[in-house]
């Protein structure tokens, strides 16, 4: 379980279409950390998040819609003191980077995960570190 207590991890399987609305709802005071998987896996019905909010109807591109969503989410989470983590696919090309406070770029190899700071509030960009797996990654029964 890699240190994660499954009793304290709530999973919400939202359809891609309503992901943004669900994410805004989930950022309540019930959770300290909300992780949102934004980009669909390859081969799914929709590659990018498809929002049907008013901003989308005004003819904005999906990247612009996503940017607006991230800004709204940042404001809402700041109100209730929730940390939001967005998981995005590094291979997807965006017209502009998402407006986040901290961007970490992860690269996985067979025996380690390489973490690189892509954006940081105080400008400490480029720091990198490889974290090797002590055990094999994945689910593990202990006890």
């Amino acid at each position: 379980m890699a240190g994660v207590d499954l009793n304290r991890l709530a999973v919400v399987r939202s359809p891609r279409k309503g992901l943004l609305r669900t994410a805004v709802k989930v950022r309540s005071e019930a959770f300290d950390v909300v992780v949102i998987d934004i980009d669909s896996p390859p081969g799914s019905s929709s590659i990018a998040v498809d929002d049907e909010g008013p901003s989308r109807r005004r003819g904005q591109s999906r990247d612009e819609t996503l940017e607006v969503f991230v800004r709204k989410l940042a404001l809402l989470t700041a109100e209730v003191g929730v940390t939001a983590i967005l998981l995005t696919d590094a291979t997807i090309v965006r017209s502009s980077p998402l407006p986040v406070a901290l961007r970490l770029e992860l690269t996985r190899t067979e025996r380690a995960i390489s973490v690189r700071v892509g954006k940081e509030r105080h400008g400490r960009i480029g720091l990198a570190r490889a974290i090797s797996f002590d055990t094999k990654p994945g689910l593990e029964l202990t006890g």
Partner: protein
Amino acid sequence: MRRIVAVWLPFLRIELARSSLLDDGPLALVVARPGGGVKDERSLLGNTRLDEVCPEARSRGLRPRQTIASARARCAELRVRVVALDAVREALSRICEVLLAFGATASFDLESNVVWLDVTGCAHLYRSEGDLAGEATLAIRVQAFVEKMNHACRVAIADGPRVAAAVARLAASGAPPNVVPTGESRAALRGLPIAVLPLAENSIRWLARLGMRSVGDLQKLPRQSLSTRLGASAATVMALLDGEDSTPLTAYVPPALPEETATLEYGIELTEALLFVVKGLSDRMALRLAGRAMAATRLELVLGLDRALTPGEPHSVLNQPLSAPLAEASEMLAVLRSRIESFTIEAPVLTVTLRVAEMVARAATPLHLFVPEAKAERALPRLVAELEAELGPGRVGTLALTNRWLPHERSRLIPIGSPRVEVPHTLVSPDSPRGSLLSGAVEPTRLLVRAIPIDDRAGLRVRVRQASAEWWTGEAWTRDFAMAWIGSIPAMAWVEIDRRGGQTWIRGWMDG
């Protein structure tokens, strides 16, 4: 000694009639009684007599028993509404049910608009330094509860229902609840008019002609000579004059499943309008649940549709099971809002019924004196119920490990709060001394909830292939898993190959 709370609702019928109006002009009403000639506004005639008038209409000289024609001659902008006696009964029943939170037995009288509550032995729960008996606090809370339901009321506590009702009816408007101390009923009745006694109208007139205007005047008369003049109700009246009121209460028995209904004059077709109606129903339902000390585990919203514009069934039922018991109005509304927003209104809605189809006893949670209540525990049930209403069942939960090797079956989603099945250590795959479910093979980083079938197997470029058999589950066949390059995407996929049928699926994706 019994202690009875009486709640008199002086404007109940006017409030019911005004609930469907937008303006606050002069209003009068006619009660539609079963078997009577008046059924709705269309059946009103000029010579129909008014049953009640609002204070504004009264200030303009209108009185009950006046005909509609004469009332309109005096006040042209008078609006006359019909209130069904069943609607009055329903409103009084609702108040009874809500007030059961304060006492064991509730009762009501349809003609006088009075609700009684037996609070014998309950007042000490509201005791404080300023109110050693607790009855004044109890009465104030009862009044606040009824006013929360948008009903004006006057409240009194006494030893019996008749005395309490009489004191409540004759209290000044806006005065605090009147508490008659135990054994002081005789003194409390002394200043009240003789109309509060259960006497026939001609007896009251006769006594008035003799100069007997208050109960105190009758109390001074010799009992033996008085009793011969009081008719059939002499025994009751004589006991009341002595301050003895042993009138029994006819207990109100609430229905097994509470429900609230709103009937609309004009059909509504917009979600926002429907939500507005549902909010009122949720508020009233929450009060009913509070009276029963119960919480809902399944809600039903029945929408009665306009028959003329409905091709199919004339009603729609939104059935909403709740993952956690809910009792607050805001919680129920949040769940119903999610459900209604994803619902298409096919025809104008004329009636809306909110029903609690299943409920459980509301669990009391003791609060710690110094440690604040965890916000998550308060917010999570509502949030989960809201998400399930929006996304459907089986989409919100926690992960539970299962005794499987296959990456996409190693965990499954279970409802939040449901008991977990522990995986027995003796059954896990024996390839690790720590009882690990892991294999030595490379595994996918992203698993798909639904596998994608691949038609063109010939185009697959398989890199690594491994076979799997879960001998501890009793599966007789072997599955092949492979890393394969999918050129059309392009990406490296984790594919499953079924040896028996030859079908191939993409189960997940690899990094890089």
